């Protein structure tokens, strides 16, 4: 299954016509749910976010913050840096796709967003991270090609 978290308005999301299977989960601002109950079984985590200063929007950032419940309060070294150890029950191999949209995203913001996504991917122990940028939310549809 894939887990999609987005901050788009309902009308825009429906207009994108992204194929969502029955098993897939979609979390949006209207639906106040956390991802940690689904992340353990998903094969793809898709984050669709407005690019806010080269990072996630407050809603997506809030969802990721609450995801910290998946971490044990223990530290370990991964990729040469200290990271929180993952709860073995929820440790999983999934691909992470981050799609940022927004008008006038600068090169510095793109770099910062990529850095943030890779770092979050390492923290969540994703198998790989793919980052995409769109200048308009309507163009988010490009992710259809890489969704499982």
């Amino acid at each position, binding site marked *: 299954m894939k887990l999609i978290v987005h901050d788009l308005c309902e009308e825009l999301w429906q207009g994108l016509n992204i194929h969502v299977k029955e098993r897939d989960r979609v979390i949006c601002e209207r639906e106040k749910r956390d991802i940690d109950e689904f992340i353990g079984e998903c094969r793809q985590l898709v984050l669709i976010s407005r690019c806010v*200063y080269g*990072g996630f929007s*407050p809603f997506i*950032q*809030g969802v990721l*913050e609450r*995801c*910290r419940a998946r971490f044990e309060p223990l*530290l370990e070294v991964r990729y040469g840096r200290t990271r929180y150890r993952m709860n073995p029950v929820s440790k999983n191999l999934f691909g992470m796709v981050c799609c940022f949209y927004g008008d006038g995203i600068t090169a510095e*913001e793109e770099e910062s967003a990529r850095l943030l996504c890779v770092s979050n991917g390492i923290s969540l122990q994703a198998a790989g991270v793919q980052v995409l940028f769109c200048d308009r939310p309507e163009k988010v549809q490009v992710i259809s090609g890489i969704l499982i």
Partner: protein
Amino acid sequence: MILLLNGGVDIGKDGFRYLDKLKENMASEEQVTILLDKGIDWEWTNRCLEEAAAIVLVSGVCMDGVPSHVLRFLEAVEQEVIGGECIPGKFYAILYTDLYEGEQTGAAMSILKSFCRHANITWGRGLGIGGNSMKPGMKWGLLSFPGLRRRICSRLDVPLMEHAMFIRECMQGKDGYISSACVSRANYMRHVNRASRKKHA
């Protein structure tokens, strides 16, 4: 006037520790502290932003980014700027993380710099602090000899004093990142993990 922004109630509780240290080194300056929780008085905050010679944000880092409530505050400030208010003061940041390396606050620091570009505020200097779990007065097992305790207390003194100097003089400078230089990474992790296990046993 120096405006001190404490990045929130929950994860910002350590912010008071750094703010107090900073205040000690800026005693001669007028200071105003605002806690970035839900009850922000925007009229008062906007007036402070307009009058401040320096704005200092102290916040923890969450999932490598700026916490969501701080992001909401920054977006609201940007809207005020677009609405016509001008913020003349320079922006300084102190970001901290429980992870050992101060450099792990780098992504959040870039986000704050980008905010400054959007809000047309001049970036002053950033200080990223790693090893936030290492607090003065903690027992460090076999390592808790007085010399080490003194070093834990003072490891932040010089960087914070230096940062306070930049703020006081409203100068721009190169960002600084500090780790727990007085304790090795292995010792730091061992201690934090032991304390966590004991707490959660």
